[in-house]
């Protein structure tokens, strides 16, 4: 798999590079494990939320009396029942000093700002009783006009938060001329208008829903000296900090546990109203409480992703050499500025120039408040949007020049001998080889044969046309150098923490601040430690996700765990060896200078004398015979702050068949050749690439969160929000080239988001390529058959999606708890 990766001579015995089966999978897949909803505490009470069915309304009254007298209801609480003890949901990344942001109260008492916002909470002895009583809470609303359309909202036609006076939250600008990293983009575009090529496009990044498998769940236990919060979160450490910062509880009194977490994709990189409400209720009542959302609640109120309009201008010389790129974004924040919120499009700011040598670049992003579900990170977070825009534009440029899309890219990309390369966005790409990845992908794909077939189908007027889509993506991973985050006004650093504990029996306990939610950290990190310390893979236990166990950390997102957390782990393990060396020398009565460590064994140079690291650990535990002044511990830790991002890249090629009679699409072939640096576990990498690809393909073809004119989410169940299954995808061809990252010892770059970032433009490019000869230059995502057919058969590329769902379940809109159930049955004996 890693054809060009050099392996040490003893590679057969090494764990790194082995396709270990994931040690955590049996319990995760069977569910016989510590999912938050599986946690049951003595005397635990259950919560149900009452949510607004309106996108924007004044709350004029809440009558909780019927709910309070329902069976086994302990309390019904509204925002008015809490004061500041409720705290606020924080925005950790104010992208400009003058950012306009509404206060995000977890349970407002005066006004709701999106459909699904919580207005009351019911506490009962069982989840069913809480749910039943929630139906009895009577909320009176005065509906207000809602800001729903992003462009209209940006024009302040209707104000999402009237007290703010505007929907415009922040304007973030990067200009290469001002930053000194490149020229002036207006000059480049002006010149191209007279004697070059100018490509101007507007692309839509539709709203997506992360749709993790495990719904969000939170348990709060206020009965000990520390308050404990269990939460299905990606960010237990940040959550603890935020609870302390906003609810007045000392950080030392808070323990947060993210037990096994079933997927996130960025959707659990959040501090949520549900967590804050459970926290406040638990403290108020003094008993453990649990809240687990329904799937409908999850789709409606857990944060959404993407949702941008992208206005793009690319200038080039007549031969296709790019000269400038101007990006103007509108980004929908939804009703509140989420924890990373406006920072998501800003992360993309550095990636629009991608692998190409643009001499001039300008980026401006206006973030906009609306009365929809708040948006935040979703797999890729900013980088898929950027990659989509530039890779679509490069295909358009190729079409304009009349060149092959691969040739136009090669003309403009950074050649492998030019690394390290400082880009027009100011980043230094440390390594990469776009030529090698492209050559390999091209061969795997059978590029020339498929082009011939495409020509033949065009010539014969075949109703089924073939298109080939290219995506030569890169991304920035390993978030992030703390200094850079500081310059971007991010509210935290980007380091990661790890510790290694040598147990008395020679076994190893590792703690990491990077808390997995399905990625396989337990397996990959065990492989790293097994190699570094020369112990058995099975003898390493990875502990994470509990602030009392792994007390420091910055958690898991942005493909950072391996590139940052893995490196911290290496450094902690190396310190163990450092501490063990003088003890080994002492026990073997040799000079420290004569001690060698290899394969888990300390040996005395030139002799056959040696001790395993486990034996040293036992000796240190006994502490009967240690050198003077040496402490009885091998335990070590390390905090690693990356010096740079890492830059995975790859060449993805997609062949799509388009049925011109219906607009139906069929994927014919998909090749991904990714350069993600060194590979720890090829099986886990394949899983990440496959899953990532499907998620990116799903944006291209299937997924879209659609609201109706009233601000109700109509794609509010998996009937209408189309998640693909294995039946909808093909077998992908994946392989790798390897240019190790140069800024840390593991040489890894990160792979969690690569497939998602790369695949979306590859697919849409393929669809457009199949019908370009019929006059089509763009099809809005998701490329539904209807949109494809209309693009072929008429002007326009298919506008916004119809705001209506298929009515398979016989009832009208029941967006909230206010609807009375059971009124719409038709036939008495409906079977």
């Amino acid at each position, binding site marked *: 798999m890693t054809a060009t990766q050099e392996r040490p001579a003893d590679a057969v015995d090494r764990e790194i590079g082995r396709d270990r089966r994931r040690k955590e999978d049996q319990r995760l897949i069977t569910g016989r494990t510590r999912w938050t909803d599986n946690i049951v505490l003595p005397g635990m009470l259950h919560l149900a939320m009452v949510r607004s069915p309106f996108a924007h309304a004044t709350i004029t009254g809440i009558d909780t009396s019927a709910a309070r007298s329902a069976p086994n209801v302990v309390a019904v609480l509204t925002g008015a029942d809490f004061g500041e003890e409720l705290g606020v949901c924080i925005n950790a990344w104010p992208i400009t000093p003058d950012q306009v942001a509404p206060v995000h109260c977890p349970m407002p008492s005066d006004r709701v700002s999106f459909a699904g916002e919580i207005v009351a909470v019911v506490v009962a002895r069982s989840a069913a009783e809480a749910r039943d009583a929630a139906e009895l809470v009577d909320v009176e609303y005065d509906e207000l006009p809602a800001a729903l359309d992003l462009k209209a909202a940006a024009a302040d036609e209707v104000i999402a938060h009237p007290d703010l006076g505007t929907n415009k939250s922040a304007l973030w600008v990067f200009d290469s001329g001002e930053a000194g990293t490149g020229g002036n983009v207006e000059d480049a575009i002006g010149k191209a208008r007279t004697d070059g090529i100018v490509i101007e496009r507007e692309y839509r990044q539709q709203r997506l829903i992360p749709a993790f498998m495990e719904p969000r769940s939170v348990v709060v236990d206020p009965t000990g000296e520390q308050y404990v919060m269990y939460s299905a979160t990606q960010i237990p450490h940040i959550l603890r900090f935020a609870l302390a910062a906003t609810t007045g509880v000392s950080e030392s009194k808070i323990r947060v546990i993210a037990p096994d977490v079933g997927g996130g994709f960025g959707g659990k990189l959040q501090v949520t109203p549900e967590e804050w409400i459970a926290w406040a209720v638990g403290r108020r009542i003094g008993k453990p409480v649990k809240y687990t959302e329904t799937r409908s609640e999850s789709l409606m109120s857990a944060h959404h992703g993407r949702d941008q309009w992208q206005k793009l201008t690319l200038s080039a010389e007549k031969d296709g050499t790019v000269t400038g790129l101007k990006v103007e974004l509108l980004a929908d924040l939804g009703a509140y500025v989420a924890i990373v919120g406006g920072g998501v499009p800003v992360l993309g700011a550095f990636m629009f120039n991608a692998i190409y040598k643009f001499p001039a670049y300008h980026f401006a992003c206006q973030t906009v408040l609306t009365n929809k579900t708040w948006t935040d990170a979703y797999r890729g977070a900013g980088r898929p949007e950027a990659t989509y825009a530039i890779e679509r534009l490069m295909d358009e440029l190729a079409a304009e020049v009349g060149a092959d899309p691969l040739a136009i890219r090669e003309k403009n990309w950074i050649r492998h001998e030019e690394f390290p390369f400082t880009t027009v966005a100011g980043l230094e790409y440390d390594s990469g080889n776009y030529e090698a990845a492209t050559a390999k992908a091209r061969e795997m794909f059978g590029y020339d044969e498929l082009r011939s077939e495409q020509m033949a189908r065009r010539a014969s007027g075949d109703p089924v046309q073939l298109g080939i889509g290219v995506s030569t993506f890169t991304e920035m991973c390993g978030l992030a150098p703390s200094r850079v985050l500081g310059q971007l006004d991010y509210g935290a650093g980007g380091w990661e923490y790890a510790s290694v504990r040598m147990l008395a029996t020679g076994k190893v306990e590792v703690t990491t601040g990077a808390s997995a939610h399905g990625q396989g950290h337990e397996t990959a990190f065990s492989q790293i430690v097994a190699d570094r310390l020369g112990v058995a893979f099975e003898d390493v236990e990875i502990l994470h996700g509990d602030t009392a166990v792994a007390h420091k950390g910055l958690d898991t997102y942005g493909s950072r765990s391996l590139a940052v957390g893995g490196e911290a782990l290496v450094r902690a393990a190396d310190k163990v060896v450092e501490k063990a060396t003088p003890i080994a020398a002492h026990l073997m009565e040799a000079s420290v200078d004569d001690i060698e460590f290899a394969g888990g064994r300390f040996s005395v140079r030139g002799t056959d004398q040696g001790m395993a690291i486990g034996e040293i650990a036992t000796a240190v535990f006994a502490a009967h015979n240690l050198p003077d002044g040496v402490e009885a511990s091998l335990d070590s830790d390390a905090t690693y702050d990356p010096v740079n991002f890492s830059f995975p890249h790859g060449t993805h090629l997609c062949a799509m068949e388009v049925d011109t009679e219906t607009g139906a699409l069929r994927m014919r072939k998909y090749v991904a050749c990714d350069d993600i640096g060194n590979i720890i576990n090829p099986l886990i990498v394949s899983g990440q690439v496959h899953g990532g690809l499907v998620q990116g393909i799903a944006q291209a073809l299937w997924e879209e969160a659609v609201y109706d004119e009233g601000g109700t989410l109509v794609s509010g169940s998996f009937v209408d929000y189309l998640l693909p299954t294995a039946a909808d995808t093909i077998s992908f061809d994946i392989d790798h080239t390897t240019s190790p990252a140069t800024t840390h010892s593991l040489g890894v770059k990160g792979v969690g988001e690569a497939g998602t970032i790369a695949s979306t433009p590859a697919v849409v490019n393929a669809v457009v390529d199949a019908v370009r000869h019929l006059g089509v230059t763009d099809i809005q995502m998701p490329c539904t058959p209807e949109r494809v057919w209309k693009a072929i058969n008429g002007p326009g590329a298919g506008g916004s999606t119809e705001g209506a769902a298929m009515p398979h379940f016989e009832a009208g809109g029941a967006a909230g708890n206010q609807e009375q159930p059971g009124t719409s049955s038709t036939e008495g*004996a409906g079977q």
Partner: protein
Amino acid sequence: MIPAQFDYVAPTSVEDALAALAEHGDDAKIIAGGQSLLPVLRMRLNAPEIVIDLGRIDSLRGVRDDGDAIVIGAMTPHSVVGADPLVNEHALLIARAVEHLADAQVRHRGTFGGALAHADPAGDLGAPVRALGASFVIQGAGGTRTVSADDFFVDLFETAIGDDEILTAVRVPKHTGWGAHYEKFVRVAHQWPIVAVAATVRVEGGAIAEARIGLTNMGSTPLRATAVEAALAGQPATEDAVRAAAAHAAERTSPPSDLNGDADYRRHLATVITRRAVLAAAGG
């Protein structure tokens, strides 16, 4: 997803089920395989006081030969219907449609009669059953009556089954030796069809002697494309001839507009899908 509280009975005879229905009236809901009712209950779109489960009435299960027809018990699971030799021999169109119905889990839990009584116009069984001219055996306190497929489907989620009645079986006239195809147009495999066409044809000497065409999700009930049927009769089973006949597929339809396509697009799809379904039925 927690349904509101309800009582539950599971009678072992149709008579007992009818008695329970008579006793509780509007407060009762009948559950067959539960593949539509359970989501409705869990999303609290409906809250019956009592659910009457037909799952323990053995007489409602199975497929039997009845001379010029086969009779499919209402509680026969889709997976059993699809694999049944009588169905495959005499009503191949139904077997072809069942292959595409939802997913394997649903096909094992969901029932033939339950799906038809639910009367979702996007359901996969209405079109083939209408095309085959099936009739519905409905039992009430006063005895049993039979309703034709043309009269059974009244409107969206509405059938000829009375409030105090139960669908017990579906009687399908034998179409032995007819070619059949169910062409379903979806974006993802587990989706309800955007449009689907059920076509079954009797081919004699290379020509289509008779054709029966049902349309899924082209109106508030499953529809029969009678204009296409008439145009096909006596035509050769060729691409051009079938294309001309299939051009009538959208006549007198009123398809919905939703996230997956507007009504005009569905009308266009119906003509293309009908052509493909008929050609496949004639060729297979």
